[in-house]
């Protein structure tokens, strides 16, 4: 084994946002303002889903291992 592999990355801290944000009820426990007839309680929480998608996508892109080494390893395996 060459350099030890690791999962560590400062980008991972972004994932705290979608874990903590949906758990802060004082932020969204309101009826107003309504959006398309949805009370804030509902549309805000549905919006948090997109926050989750955005943060996991960013972290995935930023922490992806270099393609070359993965391909090289696969080639070496066959």
């Amino acid at each position, binding site marked *: 084994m060459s350099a030890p592999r690791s*999962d560590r990355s400062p980008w991972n801290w972004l994932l705290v946002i*979608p874990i903590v944000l949906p*758990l802060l009820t*004082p932020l969204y426990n309101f009826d107003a303002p*309504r959006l398309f*007839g949805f009370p804030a*309680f509902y549309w805000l929480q*549905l919006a*948090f889903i997109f926050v989750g998608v955005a943060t996991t996508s960013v972290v*995935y892109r930023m922490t992806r291992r270099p393609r070359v080494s993965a391909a090289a390893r696969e080639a070496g395996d066959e």
Partner: protein
Amino acid sequence: MSDHITEIVVFTFLFLLVSVMGFLAARWRRPTDMAHLDEWGLGGRSFGGWITWFLVGGDLYTAYTFVAVPALIFGAGAAGFFAVPYTVVIYPLFFLILIRLWSVSHRHGFVTPADFVRTRFDSPLLALLVAITGIVATMPYIALQLVGIEAVLKTMGVTGESALARHAPIIVAFAILAAYTYQSGLRAPALIAFVKDTLIYLVIIVAVLYLPYKLGGWGSIFDDANAKFQASPAPGDGLTLNANNQLQYVTLALGSALALFLYPHSITGVLASRNRNVIKRNMSALPAYSFLLGLIALLGYMAISAGVKPLPGAKAGSVDSNTVVPLLFDQQFPSWFAGIAFAAIGIGALVPAAIMSIAAANLFTRNIYKEYLRKDATHAQEASVAKIASLVVKVGAVAFIIFLDPQFSIDLQLIGGIIILQTAPAVAIGLYTRWLHRNALVAGWAAGMALGLWMLYEIPNAATKRAHFGGSAFPLSKFGFDTPKTIYVGFVAVALNLLIAVVVTLILRAMKTPDGVDGTAPDDYFADEGDPRLEKARTTPETLGSST
């Protein structure tokens, strides 16, 4: 029954279609040798992005979820919407934690979380506890999938009065499911999940566009619901949360998320994927299902607005609130489309039921049969034991529904979520550190189990007039706090579990109690596709040291 004939025809056609697919799945992606647990129980660990998306989506978002969450919204309002934060919180956790489990399992050929605990902590006892907890928590979950199908069958009027007539369609459905799961293993639900999810997405997209149009728009749907909650005497319902159930809402969302990723069937779905990138990419794609679930939850409000009255339950005077969504479809959709919607729910029950029974069978085979009954079992023997175990599990689930009050399964599933959480310190924290002593983890598990069960026992339910097991919201006043607030039982139980594990670890470390040998190496937690598999014989600590 005659006015449901179109629905029944469409439902039966789609059901038969997926049954044929289930049997053909054995030949899908041509395994070289099916007589191996990796093939039968994990689909060859070969699934790419799309299959994983459908499989895990079909696995986590069960028919019961689709029926019970709107039923909860229908009855209690905002409190039922916890399903949305719950399924937002879970993916970052998968992304960070379960990815390590995939890597270490890939390296060592682990099939179950208990396999990992066995090697990591060098403790057969702890592994056995994790395996039994998993099996016990999964069984009622499978039974609940039948409750989902039953709600649909009841609405179509195909369930008779006598005990046998009431359950005959379910017995037939499950017999077919059992047969193709036996033959095709995890490939069957993976293939059927494509049909299931396509149908579900279709039905829900139509429902959220068409029903608000029929019912006067979203604004008036929410206003109708609000009017119902204003008029009802129950203190906990409403369009938003009140001062007393917010803590419950948050702890339930977080606790359920932690529980869901410890459930054996979620782990089976994740371990079946091909590499780390497949899992990580899916964590950004799977929330599409969370959005779907949020919309499905709101069907509960549509049912209020449409004036749906749930069908009577098993006992006189009770109502089966799980029938509100099927009834809404039955009343509002043309019958051919209602048939498609019912098939979506029915097939939606089969996918998770199959995966759960496979996961339970894997646990039994690896952590009970091979560990205690036949240590030298070959791969072929493992595969055939798992196939039989999956049949036994399904027969057990059907027996649950036929011979026991369905309420009992719901109670057990409630308990299941709480007991599976008690494996968190060993499985989730164990993926990061081995600091917690194996015996301390056993002590923590026992304490968490005892507290969790006691708390559940103490919870009454005013609505159903039951003195015990009335829900998962524990009134803090029972702990002596002067407050009407409630908290999720699992959350308290796992906190105690962790506290005991830490305290006992400190004591055992001070006493220099031996804590076994770690069979895993730090690099195993980052292994990826293409890394060589360590053979089972080589994962003993002595040989591991010389081989790397």
